[in-house]
């Protein structure tokens, strides 16, 4: 299927995706979370937070 990066607009192909999956745009390198698959809806994956403990 054809994916369009919401950040840079690049189009790229993936065999399959699933809800919750983190994918990476091969053009701009941004990480994207798959919110829906039919139709495909993507969002920027949240930035990693730093925490302490354990």
């Amino acid at each position, binding site marked *: 299927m054809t994916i369009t990066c919401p950040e840079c607009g690049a189009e790229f192909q993936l065999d399959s995706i699933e809800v*919750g999956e983190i994918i990476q745009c091969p053009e701009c390198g941004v990480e994207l*979370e798959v919110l829906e698959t039919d139709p495909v809806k993507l969002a920027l994956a949240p930035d990693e937070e730093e925490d302490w403990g*354990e």
Partner: protein
Amino acid sequence: MIDQNTEQTTPVTTAELLRGLVEIPSPSREEGPAVEWLCQQMESLGMTAHADGAGNAIGIKGSGPIEIMLLGHIDTVPGFFPVEVVDGALYGRGSVDAKGPLATFVVATAQASLPDDVQVRVVGAVEEEVMSSRGAHWLIDNADRPDAVIIGEPSGWDAIVLGYKGSVSFIYKIEQGMAHSAGKEASAGQVAVDFWNRVTDWCSQQNGELEPGFKTVDATLNSFNTESDGLTASAVIRGNLRLPPGLTPDEAIEAISELSGEGDLEFTVNAPAYRCEKRTPLVSAFNASIRQAGVTPRTKVKTGTSDMNLVGPVWNCPMLAYGPGDSQLDHTPNEHVMIDDLEHATQILTRVLERVAKTFSQAKSEANTNG
């Protein structure tokens, strides 16, 4: 193919199970009574349960060849205080670190509907809070490599943890003959301070412009003592280095050793840093399940250590840490977890287990079909 293996003989909420668990003190090396009680509870929930060779509490649901391990720990730091529920929060030693996550593991596993070829193994490991990490080491030496692992630590019910820093402890000791304080020779204390300054300078050089955090190497001075008997003087520093991914304990030891001058150094490797793969069925399932609960999933890395540091490099399978609770309450006399958070986490984890089990089961079926 989903079977109907969800019958429970004793329905229980996560909060009820957690309350029972924190009411039994279980500081490291004194976990026996809590392990015995938890095994009884897991059996009453339809799981098979036993204590393994290390004394870890083991509860198993299903018997298939695909294994999802939920690796929590049942020991706590010392400091028992009365268990109580106040304003929707359950107070007690270990309620956050990490009996809350462990209770969540047990109830979610009991609730989850699993394919026939998948088993979920819940582990309440012993001695996670002390250097020995006996429970995790026993699993590394004796258990089969699981197909996926969830480490039971407090990430917060809406977050997952994908990495922990490494840790090396050291003891520096300098001993020399007494010298007059008005003389030119540096005192033992001064020599030790100079060594410590070289250590922190080395850390600064490694870190460059980075703010202290997951990607930096950071030194902590745990203690500094000097003494003299009138003939000789000595100084001892006990310190710790928190290591980022990419800096191995051996590399750190080599670098610090070169800074020691006339002093002697002893090192203890606690664990290397470990960073989980982000693109796995496990992460996908958590993202989707947390969103299903109505919030945006968060991803964390932590500057502490956990059993992930030990089993991660050995098993090298899809892995992350998850559990309800605020880790800033770890080890404090104010340790508590919100009961609502326990229930959120339990429902999220139940959905995760069902989805991941189905994903692995289908992948195996397809692999068998394709030869």
